[in-house]
């Protein structure tokens, strides 16, 4: 358990009887960049808030850095090692950039003055500028600075690039990728921007309707999953829907498109038994994986 920065078991949460999470099992290894992917309302923010003890689970367990987060004291101790950037990216409007930094600094004994200076320069944040006068991009950069300079072992980022222009988005992604490359910091970030996750994540966790539907290393997922296209002489037989090793099937007239994973050769063998006219195997993109799982779940 010690090599996991985040672990959850059977995490459940409902709002007014309506289930938001239906038994989430997460395992994020130390040092990884894990993209937490899902549609709006899939349960991403709820999961992040549960990790930070802002919400209480109906059932299940949460472990951060190997320790159970079952009390306020444990959550406070864990938050000392976590940098969090919320989706809203709101800070105190009555403070300047410099005041916000000076306010945050004393809460973290491991505050890195060198990182503070470094990111102030990279992001070109004027210390005397009041927070309300910062653009959303600059607010995001300030929040990242606050998260990074505290020497956090884990960054939890909720839609870190949401609402940012492409140039700022690229800056932010570069910083995150650089941080992970330098080692030591794990990143768990939610997003519905597939390209960003493909760009920097080494691990992907896909949540849909409160359940984890894909969880694994990005490279492994790309290797494990294949798109199998079958073209039949007549309409695609109903038997394609029952093929073992196939996650999802889409049929249209004579064509059946299968998303398969695991032993692809064995699945191909079973598919050929249905006597298609042609069989094609293609690698899948993250976008295809995402769409297949969330559209047809």
């Amino acid at each position, binding site marked *: 358990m010690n090599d996991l920065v985040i672990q959850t078991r059977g995490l459940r949460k409902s709002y007014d009887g309506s289930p938001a999470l239906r038994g989430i099992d997460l395992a994020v290894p130390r040092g990884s960049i894990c993209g937490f992917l899902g549609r709006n309302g899939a349960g991403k923010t709820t999961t992040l808030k549960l990790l930070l003890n802002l919400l*209480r689970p109906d059932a299940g367990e949460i472990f951060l850095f190997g320790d159970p987060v079952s009390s306020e004291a444990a959550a406070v101790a864990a938050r000392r090692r976590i940098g969090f950037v919320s989706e809203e990216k709101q*800070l*105190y*409007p009555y403070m300047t950039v410099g005041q916000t930094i000076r*306010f945050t600094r004393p*809460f973290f004994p491991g505050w890195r003055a060198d990182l503070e200076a470094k990111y102030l320069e990279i992001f070109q944040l004027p210390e005397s500028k009041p927070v309300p006068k910062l653009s959303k991009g600059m607010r995001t950069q300030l929040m990242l600075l606050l998260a990074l300079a505290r020497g956090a072992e884990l960054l939890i980022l909720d839609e870190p690039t949401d609402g940012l222009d492409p140039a700022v988005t690229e800056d932010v992604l570069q910083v995150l990728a650089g941080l992970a490359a330098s080692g030591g910091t794990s990143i768990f970030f939610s997003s519905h921007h597939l390209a960003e996750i493909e760009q920097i994540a080494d691990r992907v966790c896909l949540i849909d309707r409160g359940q984890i539907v894909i969880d694994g290393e990005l490279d492994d997922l790309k290797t494990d999953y294949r798109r199998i296209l079958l073209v039949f002489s007549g309409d695609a037989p109903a038997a394609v829907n029952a093929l073992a090793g196939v996650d999802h099937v889409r049929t249209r007239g004579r064509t059946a498109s299968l998303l398969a994973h695991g032993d692809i050769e064995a699945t191909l063998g079973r598919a050929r038994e249905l006597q298609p006219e042609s069989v094609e195997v293609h690698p899948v993109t993250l976008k295809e994986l995402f769409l297949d799982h969330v559209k047809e779940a």
Partner: protein
Amino acid sequence: MLWWKAWMETRWRLVFVLAGCALLWSEGLLFGLPLAKLKMAFILQHAIVWGFAATMLAGAGLNSQTTWGTAAGYHGSMLFTLSLPVARRKLFAVRAGAGAVETCALIVVTAAPLVLFAGLGWSAASLYIAGACICSMAAYAISALFACVTGEMWQLYGSWGVLAVLSVALRFPLLARFNPLRGLFSEAYTSAAHFPWMDAWIGAALLAALCCFAAVRILDRKEY
């Protein structure tokens, strides 16, 4: 730093309340009311001011920093605050403590004109301070509790509503005995001999303890 943050959040409220008090003083002085009438005017007006001041200074808690608050002109920094390695109870205690200190300072500061301009003796002024403390302790605790549950405006409306109920309860002897508002509305206000100190203190302290206990329980269970 939390104390500094609390000060930053409440300083304009304090200025606003002080300006309100100054307005009342100048009104009394400008109209040149007779001394006795002036004293009564101060007392009645201040009774209202304490209710207002305490409820104002007890606000601006976490609930005023919600995201929906941003749309209403407030700020949505609640998640940033809650992501700091600070227990919720400590956040509440510091915020409530800062407002309480400001309220106490306000009581002492506003007692000065009563002594300097209205001819109130030190003995009566100290009774005034004690009465104001009792009244504002109750109003503050009620408002702090509302601040844990509701947004900015409903916190004020709710607190004033409860204070209005308490002031109506003064008319009924059974309910008036431990009523903390007796501290400011009582005609025996400036008389140490007639003022029901112990009952009012007990009433205010019990109400404050109850509100604090409820606020802590709510904070412990609240989901953000």
